[in-house]
């Protein structure tokens, strides 16, 4: 309820208030907001119905500024709720009912991305996997899903290579530690999505960080971990993440049961209760980190039918630097001191093992990514080591390298995602044309044209040249 007096009126110094005559004080109290002179406000001449009001005495010519002012249209409609506009911008459409269904389009299955024969083919995602991928935010708003009838993807040579590596690692109960890099819009996030698809189809558990910048640009809440004050948890983010993991892996989690005691949880979860119950116990941000910790402990227990884990993160440059968070002493916090990021970095660096096998995939991003000299150099070095060429050296006169980052990236594998071949480009374009979206005959000349326009086979640029153009 609003106070009858404005607060500023209460601030009138008592000495001034005391000096005012009593009658004057009463009027001021009655109309505290009135700016009219008291004498006129109290009792002007009464205006009769037929009589004209006597004109106020003319003081001379006065400029009426309001005559020049434009009348503003006052918008009376309800303003959008907080976050509503962003949600509209970031919404993901996965289907276009106008596009034609492509005959002979096959769904991806557990093995199809392992077979070299499927390289250069377009396969579609089964509906169940689409829901899972949506839950972990694997789809990006910038990708062209909304143009086609059904979400489908091109299986590239690199895809097959990565999936075979992942499968090999899972079979030997090891963790594949790999960074995907490449030019902009060559399909790095798409490759992560394919990895996640493969993981879901093979009943893995997927933990996905869709945008690493959400963790380090100080846009989510953080707090020191109670018994480990040098590390910080991001409770809200972790809560959201647990819910996503639970939603995507619901079937699997209801099958697996806990084997450890977890005394720190907000709810008591007895031993041999389903993991789903454990995941469900994260109801509020307060206990979310403890639940995540317990969940991680359960999933990384050796044996007990635990599935392999895929831990994926997009935009890795954001976690390879000082974060935008500050400690209580107002010192910058390194990204690796954020507990979730630390966990990922430890997995990527090999300090934390995945006893049931799996993969730790990071992907660089060319959108809004900060410069991280250590990461750039490490990727070049690892790539040179893989290719058995001359390994680039550190610049001895440059101080911007980060030792902690160097340590993490000492032994990762690097997969450079390159341009697609013309055969792959042709497969994609035939899919576009079959969907009725590309209105041209797909022959060598057209393929060659789009392939060239798209920077010699940069898939995203080809999409721009063929689908998102004025020349349809």
């Amino acid at each position: 309820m609003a106070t009858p007096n404005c607060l500023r009126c209460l601030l009138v110094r008592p000495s001034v208030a005391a000096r005012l005559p009593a009658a004057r004080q009463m009027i001021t109290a009655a109309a505290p907001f009135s700016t009219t002179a008291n004498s006129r406000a109290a009792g002007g001449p009464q205006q009769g119905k037929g009589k004209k009001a006597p004109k106020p005495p003319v003081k001379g010519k006065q400029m009426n500024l309001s005559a020049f002012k434009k009348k503003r249209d006052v918008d009376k409609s309800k303003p959008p709720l907080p976050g509503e506009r962003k949600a509209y911008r970031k919404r993901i459409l996965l289907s276009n009912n106008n596009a034609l269904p492509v005959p002979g389009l096959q769904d991806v299955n557990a093995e199809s991305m392992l077979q070299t024969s499927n390289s250069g083919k377009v396969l579609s995602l089964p509906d169940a996997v689409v829901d899972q991928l949506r839950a972990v935010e694997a789809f990006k708003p910038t990708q062209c899903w909304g143009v086609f009838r059904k979400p489908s993807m091109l299986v590239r040579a690199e895809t097959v290579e990565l999936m075979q590596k992942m499968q090999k690692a899972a079979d030997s109960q090891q963790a594949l530690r790999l960074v995907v890099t490449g030019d902009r819009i060559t399909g790095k996030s798409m490759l992560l999505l394919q990895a996640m698809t493969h993981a879901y189809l093979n009943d893995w558990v997927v933990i996905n960080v869709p945008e690493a910048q959400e963790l380090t640009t100080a846009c989510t809440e953080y707090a020191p971990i109670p018994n480990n004050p040098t590390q910080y948890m991001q409770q809200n983010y972790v809560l959201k993440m647990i819910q996503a993991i639970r939603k995507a892996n619901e079937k699997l989690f209801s099958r697996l049961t806990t084997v450890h005691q977890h005394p720190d949880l907000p709810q008591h979860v007895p031993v041999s209760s389903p993991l789903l119950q454990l995941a469900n116990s994260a109801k509020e941000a307060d206990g979310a980190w403890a639940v995540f910790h317990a969940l991680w402990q359960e999933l990384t227990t050796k044996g007990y039918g635990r599935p392999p884990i895929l831990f994926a993160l997009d935009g890795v440059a954001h976690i390879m630097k000082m974060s935008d968070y500050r400690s209580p002493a107002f010192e910058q916090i390194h990204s690796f001191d954020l507990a979730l990021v630390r966990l990922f970095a430890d997995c990527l660096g090999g300090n934390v093992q995945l006893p049931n096998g799996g993969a730790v995939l990071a992907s660089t991003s060319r959108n809004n990514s900060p410069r991280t000299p250590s990461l750039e150099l490490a990727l070049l070095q690892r790539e040179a080591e893989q290719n058995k060429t001359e390994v680039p050296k550190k610049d001895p006169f440059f101080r911007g390298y980060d030792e902690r980052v160097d340590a993490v990236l000492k032994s990762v594998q690097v997969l450079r995602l390159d341009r697609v071949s013309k055969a792959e480009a042709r497969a994609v374009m035939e899919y576009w044309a079959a969907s009725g979206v590309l209105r041209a005959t797909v022959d060598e000349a057209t393929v060659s044209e789009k392939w060239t326009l798209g920077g010699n086979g940069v898939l995203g640029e080809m999409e721009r040249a063929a689908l998102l153009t004025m020349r349809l």
Partner: protein
Amino acid sequence: MPPRLNTLTAVCRNLTIRSRPLAQWPAQPCIAVAAPRTITTTPSQTRNQNKPNVKELSRTTKRWSSTTSSSEGQLETTSAENEAALSQLQMVAYGLNPFDVSVEGHKYGLPELPIPSEMHMKHRYNPVVDQITRLLMQDGKLSKAQRDMAIILNYLRTSPPPKLNPARPLLPGAPPASHLPLDPVLYLTLAIDSVAPLIRVRALKGMAGGGFSLDVPVPLAARQRRRIAFQWILDVVNKKKSKGSGRTMFPHRVAEEIVAVVEGRSGVWDKRQQLHKAGTTARANLNSPNLRRKRKSF
């Protein structure tokens, strides 16, 4: 100075690069040694006249396979001939006849003549799309307007088929609504042409006598009509509120309005009707004596 220009063009004509005579290549293709290529080619409609004569090709192939089979080992070493054969095979894969004089020495053959208008750099877009893009442009930022146009077309392509309103008929001969989303350029053109006014009312100053202006309807050209229609649409769009944020919101609003026009929900239709009414009223003024006098004086 026309004579100088003529000589210049004459000189240039002499300088044009002419295709090398066929004789420069070894006339016989060595198909027997060439690596087999399996490229499925869908010949485009425009290149149909350049399609290789399959019978003729197969005949030559047979002839040469029979003649070269005896000296196969020798031919493998003659790389120039081999390359020639490979290049000819490549041309067959592109849907061209390697023995066509006009094609020889060109990877994709010569363009058909007269060159279609969309092959000209400055006329490469559909005329309506091009005009509308320039009307969308602000502060001379054409590429931004082009991106906006691409977003508009994409929106039209992904939006559900419009529900046509019989009270607001579109142009006669319009395709059914279900066909529109897959041809967004047609969708856009149809919307704009359907609400475009046929006339404008021109006020001739002082012609009515007594200092009053005389309203006279004037017919418009197609381009003018589209311009007016789209500016009406833009007026509505600029008053609309965005649902979201970011750079895609303006084109989304435009596209929503275009859908509204086709569905007959838009206020632009009322504007058109009003203008046409005013034009019908002003039609009487065409017989005004002042106007007649003016016409006579010309």
